[in-house]
């Protein structure tokens, strides 16, 4: 009979990147131990770790050292070099603006700044917005989903309609409208992208909670007079943590893509702060003459998002062995 238990409602779940309902019968620790045996997932994790390390370092240099490190040992990511050589190609090639030099291994941008150093410091934006917005979505979605699933009835109805409403307006449109209303700065991109992720998490959590709600130990806790908030926090949410973690990993990738799209449209980190989407946007005018300036930030996004997807896929597979390779 064991197999039937795992068959639950796959039809509904779809298994999409955005909307995967993951059935977990095993704990988080077991999941992680499974992941460790998946080379693809581990590769993803290493890349994620690498990018995160860069982001943390970049943030440290930005907030604490005020680019002391960059200026002393490398180049300032925003400031114009004293001798501006614009739109240079990578060191090994040449274009109409000149021949690439090793001082700028990946070439220079439209202001003559080193593309590599800007990619490096742009990691901070991608990673931080990816993580923080997903965290906002996760926390918001968890609260909404847990409350909705736990109380049911009209609270559930109201919250779920609200969630559907949020989901019904295309993410990008909603975030753009949100940023138009509150501001184009990064922090609003973060909040906006966080908000649009709430439905994904809310649904996931809710479906878990609905099934957990009827469990004996919850009934027992309730009968023993434990407060609802405590039941939700101590019992219901932890029980759903593993699938949420998987979803969150995949969502970080989605968030990075949305933020890149926003930056591309001019909503997001404002110049001169380097962000990948904005670099692509800025490269548009010179794309023909120096395509490298477009290619690098695109690759950076691709690799980072792919790493999150690889790791997230691995986590999901570990959590749900039916989908394993």
């Amino acid at each position, binding site marked *: 009979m064991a197999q039937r238990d795992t068959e639950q409602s796959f039809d509904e779940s779809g298994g999409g990147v955005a909307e995967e309902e993951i059935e977990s019968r095993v704990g988080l620790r077991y999941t992680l131990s499974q992941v460790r045996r998946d080379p693809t997932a581990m590769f993803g994790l290493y890349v994620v770790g690498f990018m995160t390390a860069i982001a943390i370092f970049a943030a440290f240099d930005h907030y604490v050292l005020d680019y002391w490190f960059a200026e002393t040992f490398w180049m300032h990511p925003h400031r114009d070099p004293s001798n501006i050589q614009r739109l240079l190609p990578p060191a090994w090639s040449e274009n109409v603006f000149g021949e690439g030099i090793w001082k700028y291994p990946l070439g220079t941008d439209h202001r003559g700044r080193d593309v590599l150093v800007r990619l490096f410091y742009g990691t901070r934006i991608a990673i931080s917005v990816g993580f923080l917005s997903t965290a906002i979505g996760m926390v918001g979605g968890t609260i909404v989903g847990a409350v909705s699933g736990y109380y049911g009835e009209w609270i559930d109805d109201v919250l779920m309609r609200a969630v559907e409403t949020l989901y019904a307006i295309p993410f990008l449109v909603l975030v753009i409208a949100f940023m138009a209303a509150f501001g184009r700065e990064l922090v609003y991109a973060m909040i906006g992208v966080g908000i649009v992720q709430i439905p994904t998490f809310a649904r996931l959590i809710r479906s878990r909670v609905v099934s957990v709600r009827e469990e004996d130990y919850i009934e027992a806790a309730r009968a023993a007079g434990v407060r609802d908030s405590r039941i939700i926090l101590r019992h219901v949410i932890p029980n759903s943590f593993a699938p949420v973690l998987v979803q969150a990993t995949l969502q970080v990738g989605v968030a990075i893509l949305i933020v890149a799209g926003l930056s591309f449209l001019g909503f997001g980190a404002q110049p001169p702060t380097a962000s990948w989407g904005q670099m692509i946007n800025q490269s548009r*005018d010179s794309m023909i003459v120096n395509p490298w300036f477009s290619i690098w930030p695109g690759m950076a996004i691709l690799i980072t998002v792919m790493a999150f997807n690889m790791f997230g896929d691995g986590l999901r597979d570990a959590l749900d062995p039916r989908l394993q390779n």
Partner: protein
Amino acid sequence: MTKDKFEKLTEINRRRLMKGIAGVSAASMAGCIDQFGGSEGGTLNFAQEKSPIEFDPVVLNDVPSAEICQYVYHGLYEYDDTTGHVPALATDMPEVNDAQDEYVVEIDGDAEFHNGEPVTAEDVKHSFMAPLEEETDNANEVSMINSIDVVDEQTVQFNLEYAYAPFTYTLHRNIVPKAARTDDKEAFNTENPIGSGPFEFVDWTEGEFVEIERWDDYWGDTQPNLQTVEFTPVEEGTTRITTLQNGDNDVIKGIPPDLWSEVEGMDDASIQQVAGVGYFYLAFNCNDGPTTDPTVRQAIDHVFDMDQAVSNFVEPTGVRQYSPYPQVLIDEWDFPIDEWKSHHNEKDIDKAKQLFDEAGVSMDYDWRIIVPPDDKREQIGVTVSNGLQEAGFSNTEVQRLDWGAFLSQYITGNADDYNMYTLGWSGVPDPDSFAYFLLSRAEDTLAITNGTYWGENSDKGVQASEKFIEARSSDDFDERRQLYIEGTNLVMEGKPHIPAYSLKNSFGVRSNVSDFAAHPTDQFHLVSDHNNVSLDE
């Protein structure tokens, strides 16, 4: 409304200013027959930078729409190949009274609209009065008109509120048929505009294309060679170049600086360009915040090198400009440009630091530079921001705002909104167009087109402002010149602006297009007394 409206607004200013300058004879129009004869017909595909949105000159308020309307409509006067006037619907230059507040214009008896109706004095009156009566968005373009008298079928008299030197430019306004327009204004604006120009409006899909077609019964002398012209908006520079390269478009307007060499290198296309009558600048908030102090403005001028910035980010699509006046005015008015040029400062961070120190600006100050959504101006803003950081400030912010937000912010005079902004102004070839609107403290400029408040807040500013206002209503060239020089000297010293550059009107033109003419103020001419574009097969 956005950059277009704003530029259009300023562009239209060129029409309302100046009088005594344009000594171009009306005769140049006569005898302009189609001397190219040859290949007639064909469709010219033209890529605009933005989509036009309306075609009724009474309400029209943006550059792309105006670019098209100039071929569908005629004004009483039009530009010659540079910035002179030639009569179009008028038979001759206007008769002006001594007080310079009455203009009498006679209309060409042959002129008629596409619907066969003759162009009458009533139509002219309607074209000028409708904006005021209907309170259209562009009504301020004709607000100097007190009344218009229909003298007879062919003669109109304009009575001005005050002597307004550049009024002949106002007379460039396109003339609409009163009856056809008032019949259904909505349809006239978007579906069925009727003018008296060499091309008829055929079809328009917003954002997609506008098609105009040669009017075979054109009353004028020069029949266009082109059969149809199709305008397509292509906003993205790279894409525009691509459509030029692959032949989707024969002419594209606006070449981004980075792609200049690419277009130059094309085998079957070339660049046509002419200096535009415009002025781009960095302006300071002289009303609030540290930039009220001239020392600080001086210091900021030292944190970067405008020469360098313009050379990096604007050239070759524009040229460095050292005063509020574009080259054409420098030449015509013989302004002391070398002296003004000497106010340019090289980058000198130490000097800047010293000046900041003198002025007592805290290194923690949050600098805020707002820029409109335009790459070149943004780059200038970023350059200043970088310079400030080099000088030791850590909190500098460049905010690229949408036109809507930008236009509502840059005039507040509030340091929380901006310490500096970059903006452009395109005007008519008269110093008034730049000095009065950008630097005077007149009621209709301060906090409206002048966001510096300089004319309000400092002695020098007040003095300069007074001179500019005075120069406006003077009818004596030498007196005006003197006033402008004195006022501008004060501007150069006080630095409410740091002049930056002026743009060229640049076009990528495929080699099968002949006789295309870029124009300083009209952007380009397809058919006129001096050119007639044709397509070689």
